[in-house]
């Protein structure tokens, strides 16, 4: 399809394991956002890419969280040494232009991470 896709859809990790979550944005979309959605809460901003440049990572909760978008398309969110508090749904969104409020963000289905 033409939408934002994320993989895996579900991930179970043991505490201390590293995980990598993938996002395939809509082709041609310049902007890419990662959000974390805890159970019963709204999505919380993690980081923002404009093409391959990570311009805002102010929402990353710790230095265990790392995101990249090396070729300006696919993005990976990596969490090192996972903790139970990392359990959440991780959402990826893309939009056509850069930094313009008028542009709608298209969301993927999310990856549900459970850390045991």
């Amino acid at each position, binding site marked *: 399809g033409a939408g934002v896709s994320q993989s895996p859809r579900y991930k179970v990790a043991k505490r201390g394991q590293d995980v990598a979550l993938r996002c395939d944005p809509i082709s041609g979309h310049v902007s890419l*956002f990662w959000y974390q959605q805890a159970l*019963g809460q709204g*999505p919380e901003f993690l980081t*923002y890419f404009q093409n391959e440049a990570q*311009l805002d990572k102010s929402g990353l909760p710790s230095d265990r969280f790392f995101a990249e978008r090396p070729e300006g398309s696919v993005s990976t969110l990596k969490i090192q040494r996972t903790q139970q508090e990392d359990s959440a749904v991780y959402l990826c*969104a893309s939009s056509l232009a850069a930094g313009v409020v008028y542009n709608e963000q298209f969301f993927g*289905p999310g990856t549900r991470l459970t850390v045991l």
Partner: protein
Amino acid sequence: AQSVAQPEDQVNVAEGNPLTVKCTYSVSGNPYLFWYVQYPNRGLQFLLKYITGDNLVKGSYGFEAEFNKSQTSFHLKKPSALVSDSALYFCAVWITDSWGKLQFGAGTQVVVTP
């Protein structure tokens, strides 16, 4: 701090009745406001946005929202609810710091009964 608040965790309405989901905001400067809907195991879907202009904004699936500057509100409305409207609804505001980002409310679960 810039934020949105959704005062109701859940809204229950009978099919065919009007549906209102409340949202209030607190921003410095002009507010840019959005509504998204989330169905189980699916990503958020955009419903509508207010950037400027008419206070009544029309969106997808028969939804509309009324921007009220004096009450700092942006309530989502639908004249006649459907069972298929049962979902989780999020209000969001665009935060104009740095490169900009969406800040979401906690969400309101809408339950439409036949």
